[in-house]
């Protein structure tokens, strides 16, 4: 009786749907607020010259940013972060395009077995590798070297890079390259002139995700780079602010904020260009 009345008045199912929507929105908003709380401190402390860990202690000035932005405390570490990230991302992209091409095109036992090993390697817990890697770097005397660090980070990113790249290449029909071979192009020539331009979007995605993960990486440079003048921002935040007696929380927050901006920008731009799911589609859907 009641339900019949409501059906005619509010359109039954529609009103139920609206209730669901309201309830879901409220629950989602509450969770989002909880997720936002830890981030609030970063903004409150960065602009407060007398910042502590408290979020009720507020103030407004740019003093923290002024004292942080100097060549020694900010410029050097950020430049190091940039060199490490760029070097690693370039190396991963170049090596994984080269390696993924034969693995995608030659349907042999070698290819399928290599692919299994690569998939397995992409799951290695890199953190647990770091103590042995430190040992090896000491023995090879390449500890505290930016080149050594880049080589290791590239090696660690390669399994996932090759795996994603192989899936991208496999989705390009081979007819185009075959046409190029007929016209006298070599395999590598066809790869460079036909395949690479076609898969530019995928290359950009892999480059960016590798750049971003190196930019944010703390543990690897923390273990492998000792000299302060070689350390990236991730490590200098920890060593400079975290371990100097009374912590200058305001400066720590200001530095962290500036150091996070490139990564957030990269994410926003990539997401608006390719959509965030494509970034992971390659890695998860396999």
């Amino acid at each position: 009786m009641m339900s019949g009345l409501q059906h005619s008045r509010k359109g039954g199912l529609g009103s139920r749907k609206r209730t669901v929507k309201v309830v879901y929105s409220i629950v989602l908003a509450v969770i989002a607020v909880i997720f936002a709380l830890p981030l609030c401190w970063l903004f409150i402390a960065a602009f407060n010259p007398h910042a502590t860990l408290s979020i009720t202690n507020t103030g407004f000035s740019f003093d923290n940013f002024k004292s942080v932005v100097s060549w020694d405390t900010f410029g050097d570490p950020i430049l190091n972060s940039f060199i490490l990230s760029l070097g690693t991302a370039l190396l991963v992209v170049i090596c994984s395009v080269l390696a993924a091409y034969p693995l995608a095109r030659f349907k042999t036992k070698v290819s399928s077995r290599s692919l299994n090993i690569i998939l397995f390697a992409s799951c290695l817990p890199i953190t647990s590798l770091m103590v042995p890697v430190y040992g090896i770097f000491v023995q090879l005397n390449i500890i505290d070297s930016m080149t050594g660090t880049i080589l290791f980070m590239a090696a660690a990113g390669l399994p996932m890079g090759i795996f994603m790249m192989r899936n991208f290449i496999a989705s390009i029909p081979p007819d185009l390259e075959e046409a190029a071979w007929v016209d006298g192009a070599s395999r590598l020539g066809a790869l460079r002139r036909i395949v690479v331009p076609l898969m530019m979007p995928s290359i950009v995605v892999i480059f960016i995700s590798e750049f971003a993960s190196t930019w944010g990486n703390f543990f690897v440079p923390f273990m492998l780079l000792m000299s302060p003048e070689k350390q990236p921002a991730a490590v200098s935040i920890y060593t400079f602010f975290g371990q100097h007696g009374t912590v200058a929380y305001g400066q720590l927050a200001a530095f962290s904020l500036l150091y996070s901006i490139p990564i957030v920008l990269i994410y926003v731009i990539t997401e608006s260009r390719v959509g965030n799911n494509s970034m992971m589609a390659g890695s998860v859907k396999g």
Partner: protein
Amino acid sequence: MISKHKRTGAMLSKYTPVLPAVILMLVFLLGPIIWSVYASFTNVSLVGATAIHPQFVGLDNYVAMFKDPDFFKSIWLTVLLILFSAIIGQNVLGMFLAVLSSKAAVPVRKVSEVIIVLAWIIPDVVGCYCAYAFFAGEGTVDTFGSFFGLDLSSLLYDHPMTVIVLANIWRGTAFSMMIYQAALNDVPEEVVEAGLIDGAKPMRIFFSIKMPIIKRSILTNLMLTTLQTLSVFSLIIILTGGGPGTNSSTLPVLAYDQAFKFSKLGYGVAISAVTILIGGIFSIVYMRMLKTEKED
């Protein structure tokens, strides 16, 4: 990585482009693994004579490990972290958020996604310091606690693992949420409508229709979050330093402490070798599961 015996001239030229990648991975990934097995049988240290000329000590490191109560405690803490943070926390909350966001009002969904994803994309160290300021004495949680007359000023000492589990959920849930959003989006409309026509309740549709369809994504994500959580290091070092004592020293932190705080590199490497083995077993199980899934 490629069987050397079977290489013929043609094969060699076909696979030449893989060389740079193979060399890099052999030297920097396989190398450390092999070295860790070797070094775990020596007394190699960070400084002193045994740093340059380590001696073979047989199974001493492994015997010490199995006599070390901290080692078993560390395994237990690692299991707790993976269970509560990765499997229960990130996966269940991620799925819950994916479902919520699919039905919530668009503006709420968009703003919430930005916030949750922001907690995930900010650099590691920044995220860790945010979590520290949130849980430490005089921090955000403590401030809220004092409104209600609760003393939460020493959470990091009293409940280090709980804090680390929560902080890791905060950091990582966005990934699971996005994976599940994509997976749920791919569930064909017709299947859901067929269920609705048959009179199935929304809960029933979710657990009996949608969950089986996205099983593959769930398996993959469970595995990725598990392995990612097995690797958590910075969060623990910055929040608690593995302490108090060894109360929050998971396997990677214990290995690091033994190698660098106590200068027992050989012992630290042995712990790392065991952790790599655990990760390896996980990966093999995962790859097997995906393979059988494909054949179904």
